[in-house]
């Protein structure tokens, strides 16, 4: 897997993903833009980057290990099964494969056991596997509407409810939804856009030195994947530690009312719909502050990902894809100064 830290440029997308890793409640990232920009590569490399999590071994839902409760001595009977031990695994980054059918996404009757043993059991699907991690949908604008609706509902509620084939199952499904696509292949529905916390425009770099560097690194990786990855191990480890620290200290970051007012004014000026914009702005600002190791959120932290939080929430001319970003930039400049 091409290392996250070896990706040239695409700073906004990288920071957006890191922010979502620090605070999953931000609501996911939609990356749209040109072909051949490495969107998929960056997302898939997250698993190797992020700090590992603790799960109960063999748990299909990646649930954390049961806390060590003081078991009363009386239950030390022969029947008590051993509690599964706790192991560390990489954060699940589940790629929604193209052509996936609903039964594999949501989970369904375990056909094998039904046929061979005649019993009804639930075979968990991709949503179970993505719990506590990320779900990546490539070409989100090509995905069938009813599947998109399903995924958005689960992402919003954090729970997967399965009522099919005589089964009635509920399991946790908290994940960060990441989508990527090329708007030239088809427009994204406005409802879809709004459900993503952040949106990032991904463009191929236009300056020659950057382009040369991208080509050089990609070529070096393809010639010797293991060696190339090893060269970047140190950087990866550093970034991982930084993210882990930010996750740990997120709760301690302070933000004051002045910042809240600025966020509200910004949203008001841009005419964003609803309050989700403000909430996302504040969450993102805190995540950025935690990532920077700061104790208090400043305006600078707010600015960093403000365009990402706002550009897809403007009451806009749906055909005017260029002006959304520039409107946000302009509003930020006016309000916060350049």
């Amino acid at each position, binding site marked *: 897997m091409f290392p996250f830290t070896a990706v040239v440029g695409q700073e906004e997308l990288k920071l957006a993903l890191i922010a979502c890793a620090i605070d999953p409640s931000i609501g996911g990232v939609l990356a749209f833009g040109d072909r051949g920009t490495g969107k998929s590569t960056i997302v898939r490399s997250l698993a190797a980057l992020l700090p590992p999590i603790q799960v109960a071994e063999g748990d299909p839902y990646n649930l954390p290990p049961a806390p060590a409760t003081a078991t009363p001595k009386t239950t030390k009977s022969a029947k008590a099964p051993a509690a599964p031990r706790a192991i560390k695994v990489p954060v699940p980054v589940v790629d929604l494969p193209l052509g996936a059918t609903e039964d594999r996404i949501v989970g369904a009757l375990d056909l094998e056991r039904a046929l061979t043993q005649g019993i009804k059991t639930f075979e968990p699907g991709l949503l179970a596997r993505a719990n506590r991690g990320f779900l990546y949908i490539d070409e989100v604008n090509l995905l069938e509407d009813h599947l998109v609706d399903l995924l958005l509902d689960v992402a919003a509620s954090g729970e997967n409810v399965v009522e099919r084939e005589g089964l009635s199952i509920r399991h946790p499904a908290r994940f960060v939804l990441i989508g990527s696509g090329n708007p030239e292949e088809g427009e994204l529905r406005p409802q879809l856009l709004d459900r993503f916390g952040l949106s990032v425009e991904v463009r191929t770099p236009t300056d020659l030195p950057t382009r040369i560097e991208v080509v050089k690194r990609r070529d070096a990786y393809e010639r010797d994947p293991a060696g190339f990855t090893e060269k970047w191990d140190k950087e990866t480890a550093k970034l991982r530690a930084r993210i882990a620290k930010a996750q740990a200290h997120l709760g301690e970051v302070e933000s004051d009312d002045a910042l809240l007012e600025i966020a509200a004014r910004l949203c008001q000026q841009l005419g964003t719909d609803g309050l989700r914009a403000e909430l996302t702005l504040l969450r993102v600002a805190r995540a950025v502050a935690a990532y920077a190791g700061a104790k208090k959120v400043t305006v600078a932290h707010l600015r960093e990902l403000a365009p990402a939080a706002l550009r897809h929430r403007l009451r806009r001319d749906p055909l005017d*894809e260029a002006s959304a970003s520039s409107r946000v930039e302009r509003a930020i400049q006016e309000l916060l100064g350049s």
Partner: protein
Amino acid sequence: MTSPAPVAAQSPALIAALLAVDPARLGGVVLIGPHSAARDAAIEQLLAPWPATSPRRRLPITTTDDRLLGGLDLTATLAAGRPVLDKGVLHASNGGVVIVPMAERMPALMASRLAAALDDGKIRLERDGVSAALPARIALIALDEARDDEAGLAPAMKERLAFHLELSSLMPVRDWPPAADAGSIALARERLANIRMPESHLAALSEAALACGIDSLRAPLMAVSAARALAALEGADEVDADHIAQAAALVFSHRATRLPQAQPAEPEAPESPEDAQADPPPEYAQNEADDKTPETTADETERLLEAVRAALPPGLLAALAAGATRARQRGAEGRAGARQRSASHGRSLGATRMNSRGGRVHILATLREAAPRQALRRSLQGTPGKLRITRDDLRVHRFESRRSLVTVFVVDASGSAALHRLAEAKGAVELLLADCYVRRDRVALIAFRGAGAEMLLPPTRALARARRCLAGLPGGGGTPLAAGIDAALEVCARVHRGGDRSAIVLLTDGRANIARDGAPGRERAEADARVSARQLRAAGIPTLLVDTSPRPQAFALALAAEIDGLYLPLPHADARLLNQAVRATAQDGKARA
């Protein structure tokens, strides 16, 4: 350096060899041209370097996901009594070549599957109860049979296939050099890993791609791989200037969107072979034209848009599409672009209990219903082995077929449509486009001026592109109205062939002065326009004629009557006229409904 200057491919031999040496990074080749003996010979040459045992498959564009990706093998499952995997065409072709005829008509969904396979070299299967990762390293030969005016291969495909072979520009078949044999390819493959590539060559290729206006970074990467493959075939240890020059010619020439400007002396930067280029792509011509267009101020444009906004009755396109004025639309059934619940075709929505209407049995869902009950049924009936299915277990498919609507905008960009009217027309189109966006239809854009009509945008869902195209449209020249209508008819015919519906929005001031054959003259031009209008009426396509002249033109009105379509004059920003126009149109619409 006595080797000849790099030229575009004149026979498939070299491309065939390169592709066989490094299919993973080169992806494949697009073969452009109609079905012919030469094309068959080309395919033969492309396949020759591959070992005889490697798979070769033809992939029809109608292949559905379950055949393409794989899934549950129903027969085997029923026989064995446990789930058995069906591997699908892509995995079956692993390590070989896949040929796709009529590739230009490949549905977007299939293109995305193929693109994923080309990128990752494997399929991740999560379908119908089956979960697997299957290798699918394939080389793709896309047969593009599109005529000049039709949309070609999907961009997602073009991007990933390194090479292009234009059949019409190749030498006669008898002059083709023989293809490389599998033995030399195998040797080259072994050498590939150790070929050295100086960094300066990498930089040169990147720079050349940029100079040709190639945005994607895949292109220089493919050129790098092609250069290495070239060196490997020659038995060289290191890639040299000739190799990168040849690689650039093969990979860049058909992707270039502009001719590179004269670069400062760069000894290693290869020249892009101008002589080998096809007709300059429309984008290039557009860029040039842009420089000559004078611009209105931003304020003026806003004002005009306001005026247009006030004048257009809402839901205009919806009314059009609903066929309010067209009684005899071809194949009219159901609402335009609307979803139709169907029992037999379209996209699957899952399964449901079977009712009296019947339907196609959804075998997997039926299996899932019946499976848990087998133990009970076996114990009741006694005979082991058979799978027992009762009527209650049966589940049928629910399908949804969607016939989409393509709205063709035909814009009069002639000089008589003076600049500010063109801006208003553009504003009108933008608002109508917004309507399309809401219903997720497709649009196509045709402009006519001067000698004839030009298709700016084939039917596309990317409305932002349509808007951009429109914004860059220059004005000037005569008004070949007949040619504009003819072009629209052609597009609609193609859309109908594809199974969708169409509607036309014609924006003109009606001052036709160029006849069909390009000769000037008002009388002949108007006569020709009437003939075209009658053909449009015969085709039964719902049409809206927006009159962009300052005062409603008699001819435009007459033309609308000939077409038997809606007529809407686009008035100046005058409150009284505005009101009248709106009322008139509303009444007109009511009268015809």
